């Protein structure tokens, strides 16, 4: 598959991944454009064409980090992270709003897993974390989302 066809196949998911990193449609578009420019120049040297999808997602991630100029907030810390699922006033959110309330370091592995279809090991490799830490982030992200989308009338404990 040539580069143009690869782009056609993956552009939508690359955009969605960039969106969940940047949380801004215009910035997501810029990130993907810049990543594809970089990808286009390097594509002839990509030995394993089957790995093109993971390779493009990684380039998008690097472009996001370059645009950000810093690490995503709390990317390294799990224990001190302020997940929003302990804030009952947020309960009852629609799933997309609940995702937007998650820190990038939790939403990103989810996007890679669900949108990209990558395995835990592949995600760990892409985000520079251990497989165990990646699995913990995926689990905690889903736990948080399940709490956040709980209807408000079910948030209270026993009377």
């Amino acid at each position, binding site marked *: 598959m040539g580069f143009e066809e690869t*782009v056609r196949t993956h552009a939508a998911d690359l955009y969605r991944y960039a969106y969940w990193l940047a949380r801004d449609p215009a910035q997501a578009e810029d990130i993907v454009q*810049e990543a594809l420019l970089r990808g286009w120049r*390097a594509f002839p040297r990509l030995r394993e064409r089957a790995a093109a999808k993971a390779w493009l997602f990684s380039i998008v991630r690097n472009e996001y980090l370059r645009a950000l*100029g810093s690490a995503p907030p709390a990317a390294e810390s799990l224990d001190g992270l302020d997940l929003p699922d302990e804030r009952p006033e947020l309960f009852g959110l629609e799933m997309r709003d609940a995702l937007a309330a998650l820190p990038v370091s939790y939403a990103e592995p989810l996007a890679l897993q669900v949108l990209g279809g990558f395995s835990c090991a592949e995600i760990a490799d892409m985000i*520079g974390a251990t497989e165990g830490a990646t699995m913990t982030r995926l689990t905690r992200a889903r736990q948080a989302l399940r709490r956040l989308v709980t209807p408000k009338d079910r948030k209270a404990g026993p009377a």
Partner: protein
Amino acid sequence: MICLDYRRQLLAGTGETDAMRVHRLQCASCAAEWTEQGAFEDTLREALQVPVPAGFAERMAQAQVARRRTFLAVAATALVAAGAGGYAWLARQDPLALACIDFVMKEEAKSIMLGAMPRAEAQAALAPTLALERLERVGEVKHVRPCPFNGQTAYHVVLAVPQGMVTLLVMPATRMTGRRHATKEGLHADVVALERGSVGIVGTDLAVVMSVAGALRA
């Protein structure tokens, strides 16, 4: 397998293993959890699929076609205009310039993840070699961090210029003359001499790299 392990693995979204399936078939509570999680996953997938701008994939693909045409036209023009000498310079793979490209490919993300220096520290660290204010006249400085590079401590800088993003490696201990160049994996690097030390400039667009190099060289 116990219920706790089953639910933990279910929440990681890694798919149901044979052992999990055997447990689910024997445990009504985990079977109910499996059903609920299935519905949750459908909602999650749908929510992650934010709307993509109309015609985005086609626009991106067409941009690649346009790039290829422009590249071929520019390459042909450059070959004619530059002659053999200019082409030989561009084709040269200088080891220091290649090391700058390798840094971008292998180390840059790590450096960014580790976080940038506070502005005051960056200002003091860069001052003897390439003043921060001088960089800010060329573009917006997004990141500065010291890094081990080529047997010395260099400074990794991410600079946003109007035409895009470039990476700089400010090398206080590398004294050289002239200008060096390399191209690898779709990245171009120029290394130019400063009054004290030198700076490597890496980016995807040769014209932007050369323009920043020209603006920074001593």
